[in-house]
């Protein structure tokens, strides 16, 4: 690959870093509008991160070095995962490692460190949050993998770029795709800590999951963790948008195509974000113990997607 390709890859990673806070801001803005509030501006999450970066960082005296390195590990792992998910174009140099198993692995690594750090300080909330996070992910990951396998089976590849190319070349309305999409949406909602699984805007101690784990963080550390969470939201958004609705993504590394791809993905993410805001307005957070039911539905959907791929689409 030429240097232009590498430059585009870096550009794509940067796009994630810069656009992620805006996406969250957009979701918050739409949600506020739907709830008849004026709400904060789209830039508010970005401002929060900027402000936190400048604040003093305090660390509990019981904390181990693990607690200090976790924000960096989480941020880097999430960013790496995001950078390989095709956002603007499919045939970038990063496509070579853009395997969906790698993405899942990197996200798992981030979560692992976050859970360890949550327990590290020894407060009750951190431990509770960590155990809840682990429980959610233990239900979400099988569903995620099952949905991924359904896609991979159709495309004969677990490479994201390969899957997207397959979707572009052979776009048909297939039951397995619909079920995989439904499953992946549910998983994404759970993994990014949105309603109805977790509520990102609450500090009510009995219900929080993600917030409970990062309760002891402050300043720069907190900024990195929040930024990572925003990137993760965007990552899932890009994943769903580009796999199931790949139209518009650049297949050639030319500037014009990239600009088209940019416009397309922004449009898709705006729609997805609005959809998320709408569903969060309509739905209430469910009891934590209902989460397994929610996620087993996701698993079931993915499973039926897989089965219907085998049964209904073989030899179509």
């Amino acid at each position: 690959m030429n240097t232009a390709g590498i430059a585009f890859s870096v550009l794509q990673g940067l796009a994630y870093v810069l656009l992620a806070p805006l996406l969250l801001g957009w979701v918050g803005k739409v949600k506020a509008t739907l709830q008849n509030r004026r709400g904060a501006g789209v830039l508010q999450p970005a401002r929060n991160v900027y402000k936190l970066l400048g604040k003093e960082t305090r660390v509990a005296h019981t904390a181990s070095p693990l607690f200090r390195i976790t924000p960096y590990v989480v941020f880097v792992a999430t960013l790496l995962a995001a950078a390989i998910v095709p956002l603007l174009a499919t045939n970038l140099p990063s496509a070579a490692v853009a395997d969906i198993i790698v993405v899942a692995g990197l996200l798992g690594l981030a979560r692992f460190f976050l859970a360890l750090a949550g327990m590290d300080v020894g407060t009750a909330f951190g431990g509770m949050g960590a155990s809840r996070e682990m429980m959610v992910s233990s239900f979400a990951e099988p569903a995620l993998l099952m949905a991924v396998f359904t896609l991979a089976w159709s495309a004969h590849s677990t490479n994201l770029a390969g899957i997207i190319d397959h979707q572009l070349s052979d776009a048909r309305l297939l039951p397995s795709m619909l079920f995989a999409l439904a499953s992946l949406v549910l998983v994404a909602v759970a993994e990014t800590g949105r309603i109805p699984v977790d509520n990102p805007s609450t500090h009510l101690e009995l219900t929080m999951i993600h917030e409970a784990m990062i309760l002891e963080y402050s300043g720069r550390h907190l900024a990195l963790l929040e930024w990572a969470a925003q990137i993760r939201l965007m990552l899932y958004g890009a994943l769903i948008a580009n796999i199931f609705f790949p139209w518009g993504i650049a297949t050639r590394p030319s500037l014009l195509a990239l600009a088209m791809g940019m416009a397309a993905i922004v449009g898709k993410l705006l729609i997805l974000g609005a959809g998320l805001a709408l569903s969060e307005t309509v739905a209430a957070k469910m009891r934590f113990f209902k989460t397994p039911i929610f996620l087993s539905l996701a698993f079931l959907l993915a499973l039926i997607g897989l089965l219907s791929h085998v049964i209904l689409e073989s030899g179509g």
Partner: protein
Amino acid sequence: MSGEVIQSLILILAALVLFASFVQISRERLLPAIHAFAWQGALVAVVTGLIAATGHVPGLYFSAALTFLLKALLIPWLLHRLVRHLKLARHREPLGHPILTVVLAVALVIFSYWLVLPIVAHSLSSTRNILAISLAVVLLGLLMMVVRSQAVAQVLGFMSMENGLFLAAVSATQGMPLVVELGVAFDVMVAAVLFGVFFLELGEGGELHNVDRLNRLDETRDGDL
């Protein structure tokens, strides 16, 4: 709509029929399960209608309408009424072994697929792949009758078996002759009414919630009148 879009629509609906079977098995409460059953009936009716349209089989329109009336409206309505009449709406029956049940269910789906492979190999019709789905729906209905001990839930299993059978007839052979379909529909309706009678009787004895309690009859029992 072009033919290809209708074909994929039929496949999607068939997959949803299977999904409805899974939902019926996994619901703890009766009313959601009955709703899933009604949706399944409606889906089967729509599939029938679409097959009638693509295959130009006018007789199937009638079957579709009959199925819709019977499976999506009449029987669910009867069961709904019974559940409310017997005050079962809030009754919950958690599955004993949820994971095992799902594993079994998936195994049954795969088994159906394996079983019909040699059969569909001889067919050229575009709906042949649905045969596996319909056999799976039949077997899942059977599974539901095994894992559920609530009488109404067992009847739902029984009725969804009928849905699977109907789907099989429609997808494999574009429907049975009219006289047979009428007869089957009549039998299903009589069965539904009979079940209603049974519920009222069992409800008096309190065995409605747990049919496993129906175990009086065996070889160790005296036959005193």
